[in-house]
Each structure stands twice: as structure tokens, then as C-alpha cells.
């Protein structure tokens, strides 16, 4: 029975995909929406039942659906692994996913392709569930590619927009680079363990040499970097904002982009054996956390600010993994899912009420006109900025404290500066959007309206989670959350650092100070002395433009990778037509010429003898003339005879045996 419940979790949305996909055009969009949302609701309920089972018995449990592929000594099942880590991910994916689906019914109301949207969304849920539930690397990989596909389809949802199509392609191709790394990691795992099942691999992990563990984990890391938009493969995520806003919330904030973090934690047994990989994870995370935050400072598109903030927050999760704070990484993953989904969805509500406007320079003063949206957005901002006691404070503080206590001072510094910037740009976003003078287009101004209940209720639930979610992990390092995940996410061979209370409280106070500092600066620049920010951006025009243009990384990649690729393709096309083809035709012609040579010999040498009889002239002329006709079969006959004779002579020469 409980096995069936596990299998049903991804099956419900799959049924919805098939029903809506094949029959969706026959009934109303209302019904299609209900089927889509209902299927996620049902899988949420199944997930709750399964998680309840895990709470009472946290031992890992495998559920095999069927035998998928085997060949040689490779045997892969379509199977699921249920353990506390999966349980946490299941709650996030189905819970937050359900709220976003409900919200989407309101947000997408009246759009063309409403049913198509939900088919893609449900397909995404299927893939994401496979990703977090799989009991082996290959099922994870199906989910991994599946979420990438749905991300591709949903980014390109507005298919008549060329920018959307480009962003979709970019997202998929950049992800593919990561996937190739992941694939190589899978092969390395198979070569070393002759299996792809997690449990068997982790059991025998101590068999690996440090070098091999490093190779495997670095390949895995390449995959994780692509999916979770870390340096240097982060550029697709900001462009992915071309998709509808619920997509940004579900895929590009709460779930898919965290898959890399999940994957690293899932494989922490391997990462623990490879200090080099761990250091790489930490450095990439720290750099990304800081780097993306600096870009977020100056962006003017409400969704792009949030996108860079997502990249940056994912950097914190990687940083946490890199210093061995796996539980903190997952903790931040959970709280981030709450508050980032909340921020995106309320940004969506803002955009919705402004009839599609995304530029914050054309907003302002919205707090009174859309009070609910304002309230929940503010809660999201407080949570991400790290203001206690909201969710983001606890998880981010834990990551920073862990880095400090374990002597990763440089990473701590990166995280601290990043936290200050995060607080600043998020409050900047809030101030510019909701306070001050309205800069809204007068034509839009009198249409501004609060969103319908179907959108605001999910927002309020997410706001509640963003306020309270952090208490799962209180007190730091010893909360309920830590107890629950201890069996699956404790670093192998970890040394417990007992730290005195004073240091911890000091670090906490520091984190609060940093968050408040960022808020204060934003308050000064955008409430007390508006205009200062513009003056600063003029004074530091070079720096400002560099940030505004995202350090020109996109341009760099275009010039160094994309364009040369296309040019190389065209060059090879030319070579193919003018060199290789000509070369091969040259061989043909060579064959023709040699055939002609044989014929010449025939005519002038062999038939010369026959001439005496008198037939020869006639025959030779006949064969010569025929040769000129260009008939394929005649060429062929000559070639056959020629080759046969050559082979014959070679054989006679080599072996003395005759064929004839």
C-alpha cells in the first residue's frame, strides 16, 4: 500500500499531462486548470502520507516500479528512494508547487494556451519528482533533463517573442554543458561500482581512491553548476525571466535550480572524500553569492533583480555544501523556496496589476493601491534580507556561522558582504516599487487593482511560511530540522566543533547588523535623500555601466564561444563542399582515369594482338565510345573488372594460388 502511495506521487501529475495534453482542446480551460491543480493536490496528499511514514521510521526505503534498462552488466531499475532528504524535497516540491499552481490559475486566466501552460507545468512536476525521488543516478538524470526540457518549453511559452525563444534555447544549451559533465560522472560511477544505485554506491564509497572521488565529484559539480546557475554557467537564469512569472517562481527559484544543491547533498558521501572538490564547491558558491549580488544592485527589471538574487542565494547553498554544512544548505534551500516563491509571485501580482509592466522605474507608490501584495512582498524582503526572526535569517546565519567556526574566513567574508548587498538591493527594490512618488504610466494608473483571491491566498500562505519556516531549525545546529536530516546529511568523518555561546551570539549579532545596515543604506538612498543614488551612479559611471551590463559576460561568451562555433560550422561547410567532396570525387575520377588506362592498355596492348585477326579495331572503338557516354553501369563494369584483376594479381603474387 505505501509502495503504491510512493509511485502515485509522480503518477498523478503524469495523468494530468496526458489527459490535458491529448484531450485538453475538447473542454473548457477551467476544467483543464482544475485537473492540473487537483493532480498536484493529490500528489501533495500522497507525499504527506509518505513523509509521515518517514517521520516514524527514517530508515531509507527503496520502491522499485519496474526494470528499466539493462545490457552487459548494466542494470537500472525505475525505482525510488524514500529517506529524510527525499521527504524534505517532496514537501517543498509538492507543497510550494501546489501553491504556485493555484496562483497560476488566476495569473494565467484568459491567456492563450492556458491548457498548454498547465501541461508543461505538470510535466515539470513529474520530472522534478523523479529527480528528487529516484533511487539511482539514471532516474535522477531523467528528472534532471526533464526539468530542463520543461524549463525550455515554459521560458519559450510566449512563442511569438523572439527574445523568449532565444532565452529558452540558451537555457537548454547551457544546461546541456552541465549535463554532459553529469553524464561523465555517471559513467565513472558505473565503471567503479558496476551499479548506479545510490545505496550500493555509498555503501562501497570507501573503495574509491581520493583521485577517483575527486574526478567523479568534479564531474557532478559541472552538472550542478549548470542546473543551479553558478559561475560560470549562470547566464541563462536571468534571461529565463522571459517566461511567465509563476514559472520563474516554481522552476527558476523554488525547485529546479535547487536541484544542483540537492544532488551535491545526496552525493555528500563522495564529496566528503574529495577535499579538492569540496573547496571548489565552496569557492564557486562564495564567488557566485557575491558576484550575482553586485549585479542585482543596479538592475531595473523587477524580475531580473529577483533572478540575480536567486543566483546569489544558490551561491550561499553551494558555499554551505563546500564547508560541509549540508543540513544548513538544505535548510536554506527550504526557506529560500518559501520566500523566493513569495517574492516572485508577489512581483507577478505587481506586474499583473500594472498590466505587464516590469520596469521598476515606472512603478512607485504602490503600497496603498495594492496593500496585500505590498505586505507580502515586504515580508519576503525581510525574510531574504535576514531580519530576525523571519526564515531567511536563521538559515543564512547558520551558513555564515558554520563557515566562520570552521575557519573558512574568506568565504565568510564573501558571504557577509553578499548579505549586506542582498539586504540593500532587496530594500531598494521594495522602496522603488512600493514607496515614494508614483511614476506609473497614467494610462495604466487608474486600472491598478489588487489581485484576485486565488492569487492572494497562496501569497499569504507563503508569507506565513516565510515568517515561521525558520523555526524548524531553531536553535541553530540543534533544531528539529537538524535531527531529522542527521542520518542522511552529516558529513562523513566530521569533527564537531564545540563553540562557545559568545562566538555564536556575536556572529548572530553581526548578521543582524549587516542586514540592518543594508536596509539603512537603502532607506537613506531611496527614502531620506532620493536622488543620491542617481548622483552616485553618475559619479561612478564606469562601474555603474559595468554592473548594469552584467560585467559584459554575455557579450564575452558570445564573442569567444557562440560566434566562433557558428563560424567554424560555416567554414567546415565550405571545406566539405570544396575540399572533401572534391577529394572524394577526385578518387572517383582517379578510378575513371585508371579504368581508362586499363582500357587503353586493352586497346593498344592486348587487342593489338587481336588486331591481327581483325576484330580488335571494332571492339576497341566500341568500348572507347561507350566509355564516353557517361553511363553509370559502364563505368561500374570497368571498375569491377579492374578491381577484380588487381585483386587477382595481388593474390597470385602473395600466395601463388589463383582464384580462377
Amino acid at each position, binding site marked *: 500500500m505505501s509502495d503504491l502511495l510512493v509511485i502515485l506521487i509522480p503518477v498523478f501529475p503524469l495523468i494530468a499531462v496526458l489527459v490535458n495534453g491529448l484531450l485538453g482542446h475538447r473542454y473548457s480551460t477551467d476544467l483543464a486548470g482544475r485537473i492540473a491543480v487537483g493532480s498536484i493536490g493529490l500528489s501533495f496528499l500522497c507525499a504527506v502520507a509518505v513523509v509521515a511514514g518517514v517521520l516514524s521510521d527514517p530508515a531509507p526505503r527503496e520502491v522499485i516500479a519496474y526494470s528499466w534498462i539493462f545490457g552487459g552488466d548494466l542494470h537500472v531499475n525505475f525505482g525510488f528512494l524514500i529517506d529524510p532528504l527525499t521527504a524534505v524535497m517532496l514537501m517543498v516540491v509538492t507543497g510550494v508547487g501546489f501553491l504556485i499552481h493555484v496562483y497560476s490559475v488566476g495569473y494565467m486566466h484568459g491567456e492563450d494556451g492556458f491548457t498548454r501552460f498547465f501541461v508543461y507545468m505538470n510535466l515539470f512536476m513529474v520530472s522534478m519528482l523523479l529527480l528528487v525521488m529516484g533511487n539511482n543516478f539514471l532516474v535522477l538524470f531523467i528528472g534532471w533533463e526533464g526539468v530542463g*526540457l520543461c524549463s525550455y518549453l515554459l521560458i519559450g511559452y510566449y512563442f511569438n517573442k523572439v527574445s523568449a525563444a532565444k532565452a529558452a534555447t540558451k537555457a537548454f544549451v547551457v544546461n546541456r554543458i552541465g549535463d554532459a559533465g553529469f553524464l561523465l560522472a555517471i559513467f565513472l560511477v558505473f565503471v567503479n561500482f558496476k551499479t548506479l544505485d545510490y545505496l550500493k554506491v555509498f555503501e562501497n564509497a570507501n573503495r574509491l581512491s581520493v583521485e577517483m572521488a575527486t574526478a567523479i565529484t568534479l564531474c557532478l559539480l559541472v552538472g550542478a553548476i549548470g542546473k543551479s546557475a553558478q559561475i560560470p554557467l549562470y547566464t541563462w537564469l536571468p534571461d529565463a525571466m522571459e517566461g511567465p512569472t509563476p514559472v520563474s517562481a516554481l522552476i527558476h527559484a523554488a525547485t529546479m535550480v535547487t536541484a544542483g544543491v540537492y544532488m551535491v547533498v545526496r552525493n555528500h558521501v563522495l564529496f566528503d572524500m574529495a577535499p579538492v572538490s569540496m573547496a571548489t564547491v565552496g569557492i564557486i558558491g562564495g564567488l557566485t553569492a557575491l558576484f550575482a549580488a553586485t549585479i542585482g544592485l543596479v538592475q531595473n527589471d523587477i524580475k531580473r533583480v529577483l533572478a540575480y538574487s536567486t543566483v546569489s542565494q544558490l551561491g550561499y547553498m553551494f558555499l554551505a555544501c563546500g564547508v560541509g554544512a549540508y543540513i544548513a544548505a538544505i535548510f536554506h534551500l527550504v526557506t529560500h523556496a518559501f520566500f523566493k516563491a513569495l517574492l516572485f509571485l508577489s512581483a507577478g501580482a505587481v506586474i499583473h496589476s500594472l498590466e505587464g509592466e516590469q520596469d521598476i522605474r515606472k512603478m512607485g507608490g504602490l503600497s496603498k493601491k495594492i496593500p496585500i501584495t505590498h505586505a507580502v512582498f515586504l515580508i519576503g524582503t525581510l525574510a531574504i534580507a535576514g531580519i530576525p526572526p523571519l526564515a531567511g535569517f536563521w538559515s543564512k546565519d547558520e551558513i555564515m556561522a558554520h563557515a566562520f567556526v570552521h575557519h573558512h574566513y574568506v568565504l565568510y567574508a564573501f558571504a557577509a558582504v553578499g548579505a549586506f548587498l542582498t539586504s540593500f538591493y532587496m530594500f531598494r527594490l521594495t522602496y522603488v516599487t512600493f514607496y515614494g512618488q508614483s511614476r506609473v504610466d497614467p494610462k495604466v494608473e487608474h486600472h491598478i487593482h489588487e489581485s484576485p483571491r486565488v492569487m492572494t491566498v497562496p501569497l499569504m500562505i507563503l508569507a506565513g511560511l516565510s515568517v515561521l519556516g525558520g523555526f524548524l531549525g531553531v536553535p541553530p545546529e540543534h533544531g528539529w530540522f537538524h535531527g531529522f536530516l542527521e542520518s542522511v546529511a552529516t558529513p562523513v568523518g566530521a569533527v564537531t566543533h564545540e563553540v562557545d555561546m559568545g562566538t555564536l551570539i556575536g556572529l548572530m549579532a553581526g548578521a543582524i547588523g549587516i542586514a540592518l545596515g543594508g536596509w539603512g543604506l537603502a532607506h537613506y538612498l531611496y527614502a531620506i535623500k532620493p536622488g543620491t543614488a542617481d548622483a552616485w551612479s553618475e559619479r561612478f559611471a564606469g562601474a555603474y555601466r559595468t554592473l548594469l551590463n552584467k560585467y559584459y559576460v554575455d557579450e564575452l561568451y558570445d564573442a569567444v564561444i557562440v560566434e566562433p562555433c557558428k563560424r567554424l560550422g560555416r567554414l567546415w*561547410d565550405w571545406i566539405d563542399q570544396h575540399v572533401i567532396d572534391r577529394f572524394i570525387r577526385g578518387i572517383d575520377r582517379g578510378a575513371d582515369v585508371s579504368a581508362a588506362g586499363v582500357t587503353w592498355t586493352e586497346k593498344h596492348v592486348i587487342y593489338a594482338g587481336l588486331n591481327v585477326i581483325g576484330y580488335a579495331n571494332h571492339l576497341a572503338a566500341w568500348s572507347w565510345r561507350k566509355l564516353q557516354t557517361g553511363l553509370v553501369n559502364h563505368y561500374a563494369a570497368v571498375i569491377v573488372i579492374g578491381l577484380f584483376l588487381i585483386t587477382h594479381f595481388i*593474390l597470385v603474387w602473395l600466395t601463388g594460388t589463383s582464384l580462377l
Partner: protein
Amino acid sequence: MSSGGFPWLTLVVFLPLLGVAAILLVEEALAKWVALGVSSLVFLVSLPLWILFDESTPAMQFVETHQWIASPSINYAVGVDGISLPLVLLTTLLTPLCVLVSWTAIQTRVREFMISLLVMETATIGVFVSLDFVLFYVFWETMLIPMYLLIGIWGGPNRVYAAIKFFLYTLAGSVLLLVAIIVLYFYAGKESFDILMLSNAEYPAWLQAWLFWAFFAAFAVKVPMFPFHTWLPDAHVEAPTAGSVMLASVLLKLGAYGFLRFSLPMLPNATQQFTSVVLFLSVVAIIYGAYMAFAQADLKKLIAYSSVSHMGFVTLGIFVLNAQGIEGAILQMVNHGITTGALFLCVGIVYERTHSREIADNSGLAASMPVYATFLVIFALSSVGLPGMNSFVGEFFVLLGAFLWSKAVATAAALGVILAAAYILWMLQRVIYGTPAQHMTSKLHDMNWREIGTLAPLAFFVFWIGLYPKPLLDVMHASVDHLVQKQAKVMVVDGGSPVSPQVIAANPSSPKTGDTKADAR
């Protein structure tokens, strides 16, 4: 194993020829109905082959042997094993679809067109089931004629050039094949042309080397392997849709099939000696084909070059000489047949509307042709090798097999996977997204039921093989194991061969002490 006496294979091979006779008797308007009926019947008749197939043995099944010519001993001998059966089924599946897609596209000489298609079916199935070398060669050469006609008569503006180029290239290869066959016959004792007997004979290493390259010339042109691929884009571009489908889905498989049926089992020493050369050419084909696909503005050329890249995976899988690689290669042959065939069908369907294969003329199709767009996206993603779809399983096996051989080779081939995503999605970006070209909008009506019926079966197989490939893999296991063990045996005897020891490790069942006689020199 015998089939209980009923001559299933003969029926499958020659039923299309009966159809030809029927087409000659009915009036022209009925020709396509007869062709559709007969080819569908052939498909149905081929299903018992699969159902009755015994998966536990590598031996030939449904064998029929009748004397054809007494001296020299040439027989009509047919049979299938786990390597040829999937390819026979692929052929019988695709032929009715080729008839369907030509329903309205072919307006002139319909009778002759359908006859060509059916003759082609007989010839290709004949090649896959022949157990006698002469019979094989007869079918092998017969096949060229209908294909030559399909391109040369119903093709595009430059059809004559393309047809002759196709004919010359493949013929040049196959004459060497003929020479090799004759040499084999004489060396094995002039007793028979029986393929199995010739496979079990042993040939000295120096002769194997010569024969290997003779076979290689025939098969590499057919695959086509880099640098013998230049006939392919021309042939595809000029061929009518059904011709392209048959060419890509079935004809290209003959080359790879030849490697598996002849080069590997008959010339094991030479195979191992030269495998790195072939692997190198395969990897070059994978990457080169992908880059070429990037540069194309013509949809058919793009898919043609993607074929070069995908067939590179097939030859890669074959010549890594382990079970994963070869099973992946066979699966990939079927997958390529389904996916690339479907992509050519898609191009044909849109060409019927816009009369252009230029990507620029066929843009923004999602808005006006949503059903078409859905199918195109499915097949394009299958071509990219998305998990859950057919090509993924095949590519995964091939790459895994390659990885067991050499990490560098697999890494380079994995680059092809990235490039495939790039050129296919770039194509989709331009064809599906955006707004239609102004002068085309009125022509872009969505697919009708006949066209949906052409693509739907292939879409079904895309997902079936992707999600539950077991039935297909089960068919191959015994035959592939047999093939791999034969290689492993030679390898153990040879000792100093350039084969990575991991290949043996990957086949724990391979005997540790081989037959010393294999080392003839």
C-alpha cells in the same frame, strides 16, 4: 531453431513483390491503396517474427534453405537473429508510412513510384535476412536501383546529379565488397557462400587486414562515415520525402549492419587491429556532422548532417566491441530510423505547404500549425537524446561502452551531445517560434488526419523505447553476447592487441582461455 516450418521470412521478403504485381494489374488511381494495403500487411506479417522469436539463443531463427545454384554451391538461405530482427521490423514499419506521406505529394507516375518503394522494401529486408553471401549481394545491389529511380525521377531540380552521385559512391564501395566475398569463398575452401560457415572459418591476419578495408569501403560509404559522407546531403536534398525516409532510416543502417554481420565476426583480428582508426573516424563524424548541421539553412541538409553525427554514434558503439556499445549501436540504429525518419516526414509535410525547405521560409509555425509543432518538437527532442525518449537509451549505452574503452573517446563524443542540443534547438527556435514569413501565412494549415497517422506511430515508439526498452533489448542480448565473446576470445589469444583490458573486465562471462587455433599466424 526452426519456426515450425512456416516460411515467415520468405513471406515478408516477397510479399511486397506480389504487391508490385497487383499494382501492375490495377488502374493508376488505385496504386497507392494497393501499396498501402500490401505494406501494412507486410508489417503485420513481420510481427510474428518478433512474437515467436526465441530470445535465449544467438542462433539464426526462422531459417529456410533451398538450393539455388548447385555449383558453385549457392543457396537461397534466410534467417534472423537478434541483430537483424529489429532492423527488419524497422523496415516493415516505415514502408507504409512512406506510402502515406507520398499520398498527395507524388502526382506523377504514381504507379512507378509505389513499385519502386515496394521493390526497395523487398531488397532491404532481403539484405537483412540473407544467410548466403551471393543472395546478400544480389539484394544489396538490387536496392540501389529503386533508390536511384526515386531520386532521379521524383527528386528535386538537381536530381540527376544527386542520383548519379549516390549510385557511383555506393557502387564503388560495393564492388570491393564483391571482391572480398569472392576471396572469402576461395579461402574458406570453395565449399559454399554460407555466411555462418564463412564466419566460423579462420583467416590469416594479413588477409583479414585486406578484407577489412574492402568491407570497410562498402559499409563506410553506406553509413556514411566521415569522409565518405558527401553524397548524403545531396541525395537527401533532392530525394522526395519517402526517398529521404527510406534512405535515412533503412539504407544507412545497411552499412552498420554489414560491420556487425561481416567485419566483426569474420575478421576479428583485423577488427581489433583497426578499431582505433574507425573509432577516430566515428568521433570525427559525430562532431563534424554536428558542426555542419549548425551551418545549414536548408532543413533537409540540416537533418542529413545530423544523420552523419548520429550514425557516428552507431559506428562508435559497434567498434568499442563491448556489449553495451554494440547493443547501444543496434538500438541507436532503430532509434535513428524512427527519429530521423520522422524528422524527414515532418520536413516533407511542411514542404508540401510552403514548397520550400529553407528555414527562413518556414518560421513561426507554432501559431498556425500547433499539432505539427508538437510533433516536430517531440522528434527534435528525441534527436537531442532527451531521457524518457528513445535516443537517450541508445546514446547512453554507446557512450557508456565508449567510456569503458577510453574516457577520452567518450568525452569527445559527449561533446556531440551538447552540439546536438545546440543545433536542433536553434533550428526549433527559428522554425517554431517567432512569426511566420509574410508570404507563407495563407499556406500554413495544420496537419490532416492522414499526416497525423503518419507521425503518430513513430511518436509512440519514441516514448515506448525511451520508457520501456526491455522488449527490444531482450531480443538483442543473446546475439550480442555471442558476438562480443568471439571478440574477447581473439583478444585473449592475441594478448598484445591494442584493446583496453577493461573491455574484458566488462564481460565477465568471456572465456579466459581461448581457442589457440584462432591465432593462425
